[in-house]
């Protein structure tokens, strides 16, 4: 544990449809954690998977209840990644920046609780030794540093989508990269750096954007999984076994389910094109 001293604790948050969750999503967490640990500056303490709500209105998006259930089954074998249904339970689509804020507040609440415990310790100490009074306030402030940093974990497609008109609010992008930070997992051949270079906003915050190269290429996108399922092809070893079994027993992903929201405009586009 000594080697973790002085490292900044980090919580990784992945937002997305997870329709369904695949081994690629799970790999992203592993790659990001290895990368951050290798920098020597971070200690990844938790990973959170936050499936989007049904209000997102993406084509072929099946009910959140199923997507959360599958993600929960998928992380059964992981000792550090968990699923949080908060975002999926909101009736309206929630901006990613708001989801990050929500989880940041959650971390602060846990941190505050820790602070209270620390403060109690300090008070006890102060009673014993009055000369330490001056340092006590500093100690309280220091302990809030234990609150982990929250970073958005995503693929290069999300970084690229920052440039799509009306998909993101500019101030949200600024908040995501500026206040929180992004860990972007990208294929070894792709050029995520160029998305950063092409955007003045991303360039300004480039120090908060970690680009992780994935050397063992893996193209297990959820779109391809749904396509294989519709065609009756095997998806074994591409999604965790319990997820495959869940899909089969609930008969998810048919040509009909793919037509869901087919004529509906994506929630962010609806919201931002209006103003």
């Amino acid at each position, binding site marked *: 544990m000594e080697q973790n001293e002085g490292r900044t604790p980090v919580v990784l948050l992945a937002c997305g449809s997870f329709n369904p969750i695949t081994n690629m999503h799970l*790999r992203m967490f*592993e*790659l990001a954690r290895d990368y951050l640990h290798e920098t020597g500056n971070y200690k990844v303490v938790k990973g959170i998977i936050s499936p989007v709500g049904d209000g997102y209105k993406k084509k072929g998006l099946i009910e959140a209840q199923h997507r959360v259930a599958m993600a929960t089954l998928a992380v059964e074998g992981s000792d550090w990644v968990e699923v949080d249904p908060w975002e999926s339970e909101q009736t309206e689509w929630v901006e990613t920046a708001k989801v990050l804020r929500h989880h940041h507040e959650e971390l602060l609440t846990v941190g505050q609780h820790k602070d209270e415990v620390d403060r109690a310790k300090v008070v006890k100490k102060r009673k014993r030794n009055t000369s330490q009074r001056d340092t006590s306030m500093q100690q309280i402030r220091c302990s809030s540093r234990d609150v982990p940093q929250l970073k958005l974990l995503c693929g290069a497609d999300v970084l690229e989508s920052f440039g799509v008109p009306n998909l993101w609010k500019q101030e949200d992008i600024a908040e995501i990269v500026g206040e929180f930070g992004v860990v972007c997992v990208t294929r070894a051949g792709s050029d995520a750096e160029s998305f950063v270079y092409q955007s003045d906003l991303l360039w300004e915050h480039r120090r908060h954007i970690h680009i992780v190269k994935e050397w*063992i*290429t*893996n193209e297990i996108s959820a779109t391809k999984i749904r396509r294989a399922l519709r065609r009756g092809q*095997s998806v*074994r*070893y*591409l999604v965790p076994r319990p997820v495959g079994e869940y899909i089969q027993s609930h008969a998810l992903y048919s040509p009909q389910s793919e037509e869901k929201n087919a004529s509906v405009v994506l929630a962010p586009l609806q919201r931002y094109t209006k103003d």
Partner: protein
Amino acid sequence: LCFLVFCFDYFRMWSEHLRPCVTMAYRGRVPLVLLACGSFNPITNQHMRLFELARDHMHQTGHYEVIGGIVSPVSDKYGKKGLVSATHRVAMTHLALRTSDWIRADSWESEQPQWITTVTTLRQHYNRLLNWHQSQVSLNDMSKVKKHNNKFPAARNRIDTPELKLLCGADFLETFKIPHLWREDHLEEIVSKFGLVCVSRGERDSGRFIHESDTLTRYKNNIFLVREWIQNEISSTEIRRAIQRGQSVKYLLPDSVIEYIKEHNLYTLENEQKYAD
């Protein structure tokens, strides 16, 4: 005697394994077993994907019913750099296939005192398959005799002779290009007597290796090309590299195999140097 006991075990295993397929009489299709040869050092999800892709493809031809898959790790005598002992490779393959209801590991090739050619392994498994088939046919005949009192011998439900095909991935295909690695008569026997099922990433690569060989071109009707649309490049080399660097390989191979590797301290730097010369 040892051999007989072994054979008996083999038949029993196959019989148990294949019972549901036999009762279905293969839907009037040719029963097919797929055999994959290689180092499996270690076995990865990609190896198992090859089987799934090949089975889907062969079923879609409408002519075949895939009744089983065999993973046959090469013996230690192969002398490849970084090859851990066959005992470990076979054990990991067994663990990885524990959750499959149609693919299994076979240690016969790995137990041979000498390195043997792929065609020898194919012949061995084909003979076993034929013997098993014979026993099934006579079982079938006996039950028919009972049922119909042998009045309608013509009405017998014939069980087609099974076929065995060699399953190969992109890396295996590459070896066909290496001069003098494959004996021409062996290659001919493989494609004429057995057949190939090749999983590749693009029509171009796989079509080319057939085009560049007269033998393969002559038997191209017995070569099935399967396109892998969901690319997935989990090679054993990359797995070993990641393990040596202390990086996570979770979700690239089954958890049970990762645990085995940790427990036996495999793929360390010293191990990789083994056979380096």
